[in-house]
């Protein structure tokens, strides 16, 4: 007779499922303004509490409170709000275009707009982001990226800068500090560390910013990146966007239950923060703090951005099959656009009228860009890059065997 019961395999489950509300108490939220802001030269081990708390600036009434509330220029906040609105409008229109079969696929970032947009506005020109497919806000926040060109990529038309080789949303904008998106998850995380190491080797002042989702932190590349970033004190910001869901997989399956993704960093000797990703001011302030550390040779910072993937994973996904349909409405960190709007109105830097006007203006801008892009073709109308181009860029110079294969294709 054994004194033990049979062993049991534990498989985590979300509290919410279709027809059953989520109990969001698992998020362990700190009240706005309560989490301390250490000096940028703090020791990584001294950030342990910050990896389990939640840095928040905006309270429920839209006031900016606590040590992370910097005196942010209202002009920058208005710019951020407009960029978030533009991102949401862009996503909405592209989703419709996908349903109209003008493009094969689309991925929106609904509910997560603050993270990429505030981050982009907190970095310097020349810094390099290694994004996932849900950081289109990094591009849409910039003045120097042409929306028409982005939409041409989505439409895979004859002006697609990726020459028709990549799924929609897999942009590449070296000149705008946006590394080519892979589609194989997590690979970019360690590459960002390599880029940052290169900047340090060359005595540069530019830094890298690595992006990953909660689900993909389970990949080896994530853990490898933490090791390399720590070992070489790489000037890199390691962003984990915890939007709770990786397709249908709840973040607990990636190892988020009973701990945080930020806590991974502290164990590796990396300064780590857990931040309200739907709070534009918190995202901006935390990014500035991490960027300052990187630029001062103080090493990497890991930031877990707590947010919620409000939409489906992609246009090929139906989240009503695995989570409550109204889950986002109950998510305690709310909508990043509504929260910043409330704050701006509260400080007298915005109004409902301006908001409405901006909404109309941005809708018209996106619509015009889409119309122009569609005039260069869509996936269905045959105006795409020539098949001959399929053989280019495999190597810098085309080897003989590819020339022969191109001839065989007869193009």
């Amino acid at each position, binding site marked *: 007779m054994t004194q033990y019961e049979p062993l049991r395999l534990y498989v985590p489950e979300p509290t919410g499922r279709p027809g059953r509300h989520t109990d969001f108490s698992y998020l362990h939220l700190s009240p706005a303004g309560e989490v301390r802001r250490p000096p940028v030269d703090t020791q990584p081990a001294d950030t342990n509490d910050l990896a389990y708390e939640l840095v928040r600036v905006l309270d429920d009434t839209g006031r900016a409170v606590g040590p992370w509330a910097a005196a942010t220029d209202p002009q920058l906040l208005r710019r951020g709000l407009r960029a978030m609105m533009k991102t949401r409008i862009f996503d909405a229109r592209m989703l419709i275009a996908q349903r109209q079969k003008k493009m094969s696929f689309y991925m929106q970032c609904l509910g997560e707009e603050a993270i990429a947009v505030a981050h982009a506005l907190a970095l310097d020109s020349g810094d*390099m982001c*290694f994004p996932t497919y849900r950081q289109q806000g990094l591009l849409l926040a910039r003045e120097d990226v042409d929306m028409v060109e982005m939409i041409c990529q989505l439409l895979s038309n004859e002006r697609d*800068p*990726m*020459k028709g*080789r*990549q799924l929609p949303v*897999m942009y*590449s*904008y*070296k000149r705008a500090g946006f*590394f*080519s998106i*892979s589609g*194989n998850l997590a*690979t970019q995380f*360690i*590459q*960002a*560390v*390599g*880029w*940052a*190491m*290169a*900047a*340090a*080797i*060359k005595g540069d002042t530019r830094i*890298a910013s690595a992006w990953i989702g909660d689900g993909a932190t389970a990949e*080896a*590349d994530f853990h*490898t*990146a933490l*090791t*390399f970033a720590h*070992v070489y004190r790489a000037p890199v910001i390691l962003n984990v966007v915890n939007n709770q869901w990786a397709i249908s997989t709840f973040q607990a399956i990636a190892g988020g239950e009973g701990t945080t993704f930020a806590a991974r960093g502290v164990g590796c000797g990396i300064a780590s923060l857990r931040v309200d990703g739907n709070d534009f001011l918190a995202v901006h302030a935390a990014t500035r703090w991490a960027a300052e550390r990187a630029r001062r040779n103080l090493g990497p910072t890991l930031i877990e951005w707590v947010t919620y993937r409000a939409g489906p994973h992609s246009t090929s996904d139906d989240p009503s099959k695995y989570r409550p349909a109204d889950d986002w409405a109950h998510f305690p960190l709310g909508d990043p656009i509504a929260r910043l709007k409330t704050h701006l109105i509260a400080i007298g830097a915005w109004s409902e009228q301006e908001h409405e006007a901006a909404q109309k203006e941005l809708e018209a801008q996106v619509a015009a860009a889409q119309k122009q892009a569609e005039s260069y073709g869509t996936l269905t109308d045959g105006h795409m890059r020539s098949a001959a181009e399929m053989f280019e*860029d*495999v*190597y*810098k110079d085309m*080897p*003989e*065997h590819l020339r022969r294969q191109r001839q065989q294709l007869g193009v």
Partner: protein
Amino acid sequence: MTPKTTPMTMIQALRSAMDVMLARDPNVVVYGQDVGFFGGVFRCTEGLQAKYGKSRVFDAPISEGGIVGTAVGMGAYGLRPVVEIQFADYFYPASDQIVSEAARLRYRSAGDFTAPITIRMPCGGGIYGGQTHSQSPEALFTHVCGLRTVMPSNPYDAKGLLIAAIECDDPVIFLEPKRLYNGPFDGHHDKPVVPWSKHPLGEVPEGHYTVPLESASVFRPGSELTVITYGTMVFVSEAAAIETGIDAEIIDLRSIWPLDLDTLVNSVKKTGRCVVVHEATRTSGFGAELTALVQEHCFYHLEAPIERVAGWDTPYPHAQEWAYFPGPARVGAAFKRAMEK
């Protein structure tokens, strides 16, 4: 004026290539497990850290995925990383970074980003390394579009090819047959090793030169039979030719893929007979591709079926190493079969 040459082992020649490139190009960096202070387990990078500093030659964590992943990022920045995977048998954790990232970065970004990286890895058996220090995985790389796969057989080619690889804007897998590091081993494991200092290909120019990629060499001219091979099997094939008395023309591919098709096609058209030899396992090995290419391009010139000699389709055994290794007797037997028909 002929450049000054020095007798070098393949290890010294590889080190000289990295030395030349570290001196010439400030964007070249060298790293990997044990390569910094210690100079690598095979000593290929010995002295380079002392000469060029720790920010250009350094140790890496035991993480092949991290080594190649950071190299891709450094390449995107504008550096030319030269990284060492301690044994080719250890590259598998880096597969995603090699296959999905380095190889396809130029293509997927339409040239916006590139991965001008060189990944060195010692390969092949004959050192009692067992199944984790003896593999020849070249076929796994040749199947990946966007990669260049190179394997030198001697110090002169090793240096010239490594410089060409570092200067190349494509990712290059640089396989180093470790049994050839110290001498032109011909498969007779029971005989003393001839050092490179006694072989003309051990005379290596001191400064910068390249052996172009995609160029094979006619290692030994001959008229009766064409041997298509690379790496360790070049010298094994030479021994087999001498021992059988068959006038074999030995083509050393040097660049495995993309390859110099003309040189091998011209040779087979001339001799009418072909034996493909490699140390890697037989099935779906690169010999299968070579056999298909010869069949496609030389069918009406062939006098006999193409013969393949390769490692057996087993893991590389430890104690039975010499029963596994395709030595001169097995290669010579294939020559005879190709001549009989």
